[in-house]
C-alpha cells in the first residue's frame, strides 16, 4: 500500500508539472500582452512597453519563461519560496490569490456539502421507491437540472427568487390558494417517500398536508417572515423529532439504549436553550462558536459511550448526530433572532436577499448579524450550484444502490430475517457508498474550477475573477496561480479517490 501511494504521488507530481507547462504556454500564446500599449496614444508609449517587458520578462520566449516562473515557486529567484510573480499592474499574485481563495472556498464549500447530502438522500430514496411517480419525477428533474446552463438559472434566480422574495417580504402575506397548493404538494412528496401501502399512504398524505397547512397558517398569523423564530416550543418539538428520527435510521427504535441516549442529549440541548440565547451567545466569536459546536458533539458522544453498555459505538454515534443537529437548530434560532434587525438596518433597507457580491459593504455587527449577511449573499449562488451538481449525485447514488440491492448478500440478509432498515442502512447503503465516495472526491477536485461562471454571474471576486483578469491581459502569472490551486485540487482529490476506493473495498488490490 505504501509503495502504491508513493508511486501514485510521484506520478501525480510529474503530471501536474506537465499540465502547468502546457497551461503556461497556452496562456502566454493566447494573445499579445502589449496590445493595449501598442494601440495607446500615450507619449511615453515606448517606455511603457519596455517597462512591462522588463516586469514580466516578455523578452524571454514562453517555453523558457515558464522556467523563470517555476524557479520563482521553488525560491530560486530570491523572492522566497512559493513566489508567484506579479500581475500586469505590478500587484503581487500571492496576495491576490490569498483573497480570491478565501472568497471562492466560502462560495463552494456549503454548496458542495449540501449538494452531496441532498443528492445522496434523494438518490437513495428514489432507488428504494423505484418506478414510483416520485422516482420518475426526480429522474426528469435531474435530467432537467443537468441540462441547465448555470448563468441562465442565475438570472432567473435573481429575478424571481431574490427580487420576488424581497417584494414579498415588504408585505408578507401568503394567499390561501398558495397554502392549499403547498400542502397538497408536500402531502404527495411525503406519501411517495415514506414506505407505506394502501390506506396508510392516504394517512401519510393527509398528515403531511394538514401539518404543512397548519405550519403555513401559523407563520401567516404570527407574521413569521418578518420575525422568523423557532422558539422554545419549536425547539422542544424538533429536538424530540430529531432524537427519534436519528435513532430510527441509525440504530432502529428497538435499540433502547440509543433512544435513551438521544433523548438525554436532546433534553440537555433544550435545557441549554435559554442560557445560550440570553447569555452565552453574546460572548461568542466565530471560532468559539465552532468550538462550542465541537464540544456539544463531544459531550453527546461521551453520553452515548458511557450509557451504551454493550453497544458503545453505535449508541455514541447516534447520540453525537443528535447532539450536532440539536446544536445546529439552536444556533439557527439565534441567527433568526437578528433577522428583523438585519433586514431593517440602514444598509439593507428591507431588501435582504442579495443578488450580487459576497458581503454588504460597510456592514458591521455581531457574529450573528454577519452570519445572516453571509447567508443572504450565499443563498442564490449556492442554490444555482446545488441545482447543477445535485443531478449527477442523485443519478449516481440511485444507480449504485440499485446495483447493490440486487446482490446475493442482500437476499441473504433478508433471508435471515433482518429488518428492512438493517438491510438497507447497514448492508446496502454502506456498500453503495463506495463508488459514490470516489465520484464525490473526483467532483470536489473539479468544483473550484467549475465555479468560474457562477462567480462571474453573482459578482464574487474570487478565483474566477483572478483567472479572467489574467486571461484578458494575456498575463500568465495570475492564471497560473489559479491553475495551481484548481489543478492541484484535481490531482489531490484524484489521488484521494483512488485511495478511498482501495481502502473501502477490500476486493480492490493495489500493488
Amino acid at each position, binding site marked *: 500500500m505504501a509503495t502504491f501511494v508513493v508511486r501514485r504521488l510521484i*506520478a501525480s507530481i*510529474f*503530471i*501536474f508539472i*506537465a*499540465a502547468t507547462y*502546457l*497551461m503556461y504556454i*497556452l*496562456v502566454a*500564446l*493566447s*494573445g499579445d500582452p502589449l496590445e493595449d500599449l501598442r494601440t495607446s496614444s500615450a507619449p511615453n508609449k515606448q517606455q511603457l512597453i519596455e517597462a512591462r517587458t522588463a516586469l514580466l520578462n516578455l523578452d524571454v520566449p514562453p517555453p523558457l519563461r515558464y522556467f523563470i516562473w517555476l524557479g520563482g515557486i521553488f525560491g530560486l529567484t530570491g523572492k522566497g519560496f512559493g513566489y508567484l510573480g506579479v500581475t500586469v499592474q505590478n500587484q503581487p499574485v500571492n496576495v491576490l490569490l490569498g483573497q480570491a481563495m478565501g472568497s471562492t472556498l466560502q462560495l463552494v464549500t456549503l454548496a458542495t456539502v449540501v449538494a452531496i447530502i441532498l443528492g445522496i438522500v434523494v438518490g437513495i430514496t428514489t432507488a428504494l*421507491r*423505484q*418506478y*414510483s411517480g416520485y422516482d420518475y419525477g426526480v429522474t*426528469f428533474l435531474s*435530467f*432537467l437540472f*443537468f*441540462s*441547465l*446552463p*448555470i*448563468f*441562465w438559472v442565475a*438570472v432567473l434566480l435573481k*429575478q424571481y427568487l431574490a427580487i420576488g422574495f424581497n417584494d414579498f417580504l415588504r408585505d408578507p402575506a401568503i394567499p390561501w390558494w398558495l397554502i392549499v397548493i403547498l400542502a397538497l404538494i408536500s402531502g404527495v412528496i411525503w406519501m411517495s417517500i415514506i414506505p407505506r401501502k394502501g390506506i396508510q399512504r392516504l394517512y401519510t398524505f393527509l398528515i403531511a398536508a394538514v401539518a404543512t397547512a397548519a405550519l403555513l397558517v401559523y407563520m401567516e398569523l404570527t407574521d413569521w417572515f418578518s420575525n422568523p423564530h423557532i422558539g422554545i416550543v419549536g425547539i422542544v418539538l424538533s429536538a424530540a423529532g430529531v432524537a427519534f428520527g436519528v435513532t430510527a435510521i441509525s440504530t432502529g427504535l428497538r435499540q433502547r439504549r440509543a433512544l435513551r441516549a438521544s433523548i438525554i442529549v436532546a433534553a440537555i440541548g433544550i435545557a441549554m436553550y435559554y442560557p445560550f440565547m440570553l447569555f452565552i451567545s453574546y460572548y461568542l466569536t466565530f471560532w468559539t462558536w465552532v468550538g462550542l459546536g465541537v464540544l456539544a458533539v463531544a459531550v453527546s458522544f461521551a453520553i452515548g459511550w458511557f450509557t451504551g453498555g454493550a453497544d458503545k459505538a453505535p449508541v455514541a454515534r447516534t447520540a453525537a448526530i443528535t447532539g450536532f443537529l440539536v446544536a445546529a437548530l439552536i444556533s439557527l434560532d439565534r441567527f433568526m433572532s437578528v433577522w428583523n434587525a438585519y433586514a431593517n438596518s440602514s444598509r439593507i433597507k428591507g431588501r435582504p436577499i442579495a443578488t450580487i457580491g459576497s458581503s454588504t459593504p460597510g456592514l458591521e455587527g455581531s457574529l450573528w448579524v454577519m452570519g445572516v449577511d453571509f447567508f443572504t449573499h450565499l443563498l442564490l449562488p449556492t442554490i444555482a450550484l446545488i441545482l447543477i451538481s445535485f443531478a449527477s449525485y442523485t443519478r449516481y447514488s440511485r*444507480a449504485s444502490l*440499485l*446495483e447493490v*440491492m*440486487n446482490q446475493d448478500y442482500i437476499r441473504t440478509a433478508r433471508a435471515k430475517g433482518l429488518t428492512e432498515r438493517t438491510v438497507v442502512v447497514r448492508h446496502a447503503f454502506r456498500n453503495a457508498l463506495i463508488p459514490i465516495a470516489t465520484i464525490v472526491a473526483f467532483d470536489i477536485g*473539479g468544483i473550484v*474550477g*467549475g465555479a*468560474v*461562471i457562477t462567480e*462571474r454571474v453573482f459578482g464574487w471576486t474570487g478565483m474566477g475573477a483572478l*483567472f*479572467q483578469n489574467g*486571461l484578458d491581459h494575456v498575463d500568465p502569472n495570475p*492564471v497560473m496561480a*489559479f*491553475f495551481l490551486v*484548481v*489543478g492541484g485540487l*484535481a*490531482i489531490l482529490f484524484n489521488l484521494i479517490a483512488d485511495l478511498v476506493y482501495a481502502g473501502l473495498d477490500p476486493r480492490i488490490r493495489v500493488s
Partner: protein
Amino acid sequence: MSNIPPPVEQPGHHEGSVAEAENSIELKEIAGLSQGQIVRRRFFRHKGALISMFALAFIILLSFTSVGVAFGDWKSGGWWQYTWNVAVEIENNGRPTLSLFPFAIGNHPFGQDEVGRDIFAVVMRGTQQSLMIMVIVGVIATIIGTVIGAVSGYYRGWRDSVLMRFTDVIITIPVIVIAAVLGRRFGDFGAPVLAVILGLLLWTGLARLVRGEFLSLREREFVDAARVAGANDNRIIFRHILPNAIGVIIVNSTLLMASAILIETGISFLGYGVQAPDTSLGKIISENQVAFATRPWLFWWPGVFIIAIALCINFIGDGLRDAFDPRQKRMPSDRALARADRDKTPVGPAPLAEAEARVPRASGSTGMGTGL
C-alpha cells in the same frame, strides 16, 4: 437475422417463480433477433428517448430550414422572412407576437431586440451553431477517445503508460478553463474552429472508459480464438473487440455532446467563444442578461432552446444506456412483482421492461464478435 416477430409470452402458466417467468418472457422476446434488433427494440420502448428523438429532429429541421445556412460568403435562404443579422423597424416595442390563445405567430414571434433584429431568426441561427458544434465535437472527441483508449487498452505496456499519462495531463486542466484559454486565441475564426478545439479537449473521459472495456475484453476467449485463427491486431481490434465496446462508446458520446453544448454556451457567455457578428445561444444570453427586467424575451428563448437540446440529448443517451446495458433496470418494484404474481392476464409492457433487466449483461457474447 430472422424477421419472425417473437410471440408475446403469456406468463399466466408460470405460477411458481416470477423471476423464472420473466426470464423466459425475455428469452422468447429476443429469440432469433440480432443484437442490433434487440437494442433497437429496447431503445424504442424508452418513451422519453423516443419523444426526445422526435423533438430533436424537429429542432434541427426548424433551425436549418427557417433562416437557411451560411458558410462564409455562400448563403442559402430559408422560409423565414427575416435574417439573423439584419435589423428591421421595431414593431410594438419589440414585444413577441407569438400567442397560443388564439394561436398566432405574427411578424416577430420571439420579439425583437433593441436595434430591431428579429429574435426568432437570431435564436435559430444560434441553435444552428450550437447543433453544429455539438456534432463536430461529438465526432472528433469520439474518434480520438476511442483510438487512444483502444490502443492503450489493447497493447498495454509502454503505449498504455504514455497515452494514459497524457490523458491525465489533459484531465487535470478543467475543460472550461482550457476551452476559455484556447477560445480567446481561436474564437475569432468562427464556430467550426471552436468546435474542433472543444473536440480536441473532451475525449479524455471516453478514452479511459474505452481503455477499461478493452482491458477486460482482450482477455476473453473469443479474442484468443480470433488470434489462434490468425487474425492480426487490426482485425481483432476493429472486428472483434470494438463491436463489443460499442455500447459504452455510443452512450458516452451522446452524453459528451450534451456537455459540449453547455460548455460552448458557457465560454461564449464568458466572452471567449463565438464572436460577433456571428452568434450562438450562450452569446445571446450573455449580451442580454442586463435587459432581463425590460425585455425578458431576449433571454427566455435562447435558454429554452439550450435546455431543449441538452435535455433531448440526455434522454436519448439514457435510452441508449438502457438499450445497451440493462443492468440498472433489474430490481422490479414490489407492486410489479405482486401484480405479476397475482395476475392471470397477459402482462403489459411495463413488467416486460423490468423482466429483460434480469438477464445478465450479455454484451461480450462471442456471437457478436463479427456480427455487428
